[in-house]
């Protein structure tokens, strides 16, 4: 148990650092999702399964999805809003 906890704490530290050090936004989103999963495992090991479930659904699903959609929306080549091209 002690080994598992130490391992997960180290992994969480490494995951958090990886999120900060990743420069490309798209990769950063996936790093953040992975970090969310590590945190969920850590919470589960600390006997907080409710928090772990919430961390999975928010940290590893909902938040990355929104970031991905925003990135996609920002990169998209879309028609001008008005026929004359003005905004």
């Amino acid at each position, binding site marked *: 148990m002690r080994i598992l906890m130490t391992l997960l704490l180290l992994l969480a530290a490494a995951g958090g650092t990886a999120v900060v050090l990743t420069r490309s936004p798209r990769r950063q989103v996936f790093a953040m999702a992975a970090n969310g999963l590590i945190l969920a495992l850590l919470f589960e090991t600390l006997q907080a399964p*409710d928090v772990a*479930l919430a961390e999975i659904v928010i940290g590893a699903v*909902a938040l990355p999805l929104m970031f991905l*959609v*925003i990135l996609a*929306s920002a990169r*998209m080549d879309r028609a001008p809003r008005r026929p004359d091209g003005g905004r």
Partner: protein
Amino acid sequence: MNARARLLTFLFACAGLGPAVVVLILHLPRFGAHALPYGDLINDSAPRERHVANAVSAVNFDYRGIDTLGEEFMLLCAVTGVVVLLRSKRGERVDAPAGRVEGRSLRPRSDAVSGVTRLLAPVTALFGLTVALHGMTTPGGGFQGGVIVASAISMVFVGEGYRSWRKCAPSVAFDATEGAGAALYALCGFASLLAGLPFLTNVLPLGTLRHVFSGGLMLIENAGVTLAVAGGFTVLFGEFLEETRVETRDDES
């Protein structure tokens, strides 16, 4: 601010905060030992007083039920804000094709993706309902179950594409689900007021400990949270995904 000035500021902050952090770490309680009586108290009294095995649910829906009511309306306000901001700019039409990044080839969706999501989406939805339904006995509950159901609905977008997903998740229905869930939770509070008791008092029979349908009024509150969260997150995902489709002429009307 140049790199040198930034480094100096950092070192200055370190000199101030570093010793404080070290002192705090040395004075932390031993790992796993806590001095707070609340958790032990709830663990002891929730099964006895509320006939509920999951103490977290007992806190969320009963002992601190008023906090969850606040969170419920916080979610409602957040979702409403997103809808007002994004939908008013974009218009109500939902039949435009998906947008694309210039210079990137459009590959047709592979059969494997469709097949896997067709298998997984119903199973995920069922799992979400199970997590929500068993909120009183096992970890989970309305919030977690609701988000899992919402992500199952979003899987249709991955597997079947924009049009089928729009048909599958009509936003009117999920707007209503979100509002109805929050209303159901609030009405639970008024039910006890009608009986002459304080707001959100557990007025229903509590049932047997470790049974799925234990906890009395908490079950209805849990159902309300499930509806509100499933509806809210579906609407939220929907509004954000709508941002990736091609803009049409009547947008920004």
